[in-house]
């Protein structure tokens, strides 16, 4: 459905996207993962025909974004990072305007507007001015705008940014529902890993404009779940604030590869413990602390941050153990040209 080959976008002084290639099949939900300034927005803008690429090409639904932009635009729904809303319009007026702009006929228009208002749960604010809407509603109106012409391809730039946790879950469910019938191919960008786990089937990771990996979510997470990172908070019985004995004890637990000491306050000693590959260390850690007679205040697994994923992905390529099922894993992004501020 989407094919990108050797895509490069160069600005005056920096390279925003550097020779990226990937493809997306019909009906897939793909997560576009990368830190800020990685080139996610730029790639999406090329796909939506907003920006012309410096070199390379991209096809959406079989149409070249440079040769046949009109055909591509007809088949694409796009939600930019800030929803493109006109504050002085009512929600329903806005949807009618976008519907007409996307080429819906007079006959289809009222039905489609009613339908997307229902799908995106904005029926109750239909006659409100957009300037009066909360952030969550604005995001949903933005999403409604993107799907109003029932596009084959949906491109969502950070669809959950700035929403509260409840709204995030709603938005994710909405996105999953859209893909359920298999009519929509969805690309969504994010810098939050759990988001990709929760919604996507496939992940494309880019950093500093370069493609780091494309893989299925299962492969990626299993690879990352190999080792565990645990946060521990311990209180010594006599209230002593000396972390040394605790740290030494924790290091002795089998399967622990590293113990990092964090800040200490009121006799609470905090540590970050990392495990070796494929080891479950939490039960043993708990046992060790209790047996030593300290009280265990807190013990929980910490999600891996994006930086750590990049680190893991890139080091694993260096060691030559390329992903089991990964489509492609490119060279390390360490040499990539900085692309800050390119978005």
């Amino acid at each position, binding site marked *: 459905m989407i094919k990108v080959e050797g895509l490069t976008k160069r600005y005056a002084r920096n390279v925003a996207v550097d020779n990226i290639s990937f493809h997306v099949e019909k009906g897939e939900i793909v997560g576009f993962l990368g830190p800020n300034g990685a080139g996610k927005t730029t790639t999406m803008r090329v796909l939506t*025909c*907003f920006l012309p690429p410096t070199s390379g090409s991209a096809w959406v639904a079989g149409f070249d974004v440079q040769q046949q932009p*009109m055909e591509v635009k007809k088949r694409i729904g*796009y939600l930019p990072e800030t929803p*493109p809303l*006109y504050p*002085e319009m009512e929600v329903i007026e806005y949807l009618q305007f976008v519907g*007409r*702009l996307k*080429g819906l006929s007079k006959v289809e228009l009222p039905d489609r507007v009613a339908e997307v208002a229902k799908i995106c749960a904005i029926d109750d604010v239909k006659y409100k001015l957009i300037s009066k809407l909360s952030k969550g509603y604005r995001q949903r109106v933005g999403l409604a705008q993107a799907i109003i012409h029932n596009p084959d391809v949906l491109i969502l730039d950070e669809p959950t940014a700035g929403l509260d946790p409840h709204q995030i879950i709603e938005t994710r469910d909405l996105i999953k529902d859209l893909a359920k019938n298999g009519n929509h191919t969805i690309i969504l960008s994010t810098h939050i890993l759990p988001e990709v786990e929760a919604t996507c089937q496939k992940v494309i990771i880019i950093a500093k404009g370069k493609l780091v990996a494309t893989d299925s979510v299962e492969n990626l997470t299993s690879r990352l779940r190999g080792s565990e990172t645990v946060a521990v908070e311990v209180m010594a019985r006599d209230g002593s604030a000396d972390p040394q004995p605790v740290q030494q004890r924790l290091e002795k637990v089998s399967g622990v590869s590293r113990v990092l000491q964090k800040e200490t306050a009121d006799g609470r000693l905090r540590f970050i413990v990392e495990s070796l590959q494929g080891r479950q260390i939490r039960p043993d850690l708990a046992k060790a602390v209790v047996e030593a007679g300290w009280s265990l205040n807190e013990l929980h697994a910490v999600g891996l941050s994006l930086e750590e994923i990049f680190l893991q992905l890139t080091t694993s390529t260096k060691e030559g153990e390329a992903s089991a099922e990964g489509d492609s894993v490119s060279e390390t992004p360490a040499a990539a040209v900085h692309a800050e501020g390119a978005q």
Partner: protein
Amino acid sequence: MNILTICRKEMNSYFRSPIAYIVMALWAVLSGFFFYFAMSFFVQRSIESQMMGQSFPMDVNEWVIRPLFSNISVIGLFLIPMITMRLFAEEKRSGTIELLVTSPVSDLEIILGKWLAAVTLYSCMLGLSLLSIGILFLFGRPDWKPMLVGFLGLLLQGGCLLAIGTWISTCTRNQIVAGVAGFAVSLLLYVLNWVSEFGSSASDKVIGYLSVQQHYESFARGVLDSKDVIFFVSLIFVGLFLTARSMESIRWRA
């Protein structure tokens, strides 16, 4: 079809915001002021000429309409940048330009839609002047054809300044910058004929020829000259062409 969609949306935002009402009110007040003084002057002169014993009647077209049209074209210089400044600058600032550009609509349709909306608002302003001119018909029998030409002149001059204002609005995301620059360019275009009044070299004449005022003057007199019509139409074309080029560069720079 798409042009109308965009035009309708722009009209909507003009009349939802204070802009439409402010420019229309300012136009009504200023053009009414000019009308009042053109009328007072006319009345005074006709009393004087009667006292002097002149028996031939004074021409309303010559004494009221012509100075009125000359004067009110100046109001446009101030108000037209207020109409055009938000057209693209606001869309660029709020990011809605991304919606327009990624929709299956050509740049030309976007530009024409926006420009037509501006022209429509400007025509509404001109419509207000019909009221004062209507008063003339209550008390006299002025010739309506030169008036029609005068209105056509106002419309053409406005259309071309609006096209240039639209272009300036694509160059910035700051409305105030677009407004001030639009005003400066309009004013400059208006007074360019001073160059040919002082100098007489070929370049002076060419620059003077570009003056909007010079070409508008014949319309105010009630003369429909194809050369002036062509001048305005081509300036409109140039303005919209520059807008189209500038919009393309938005994509390259964004």
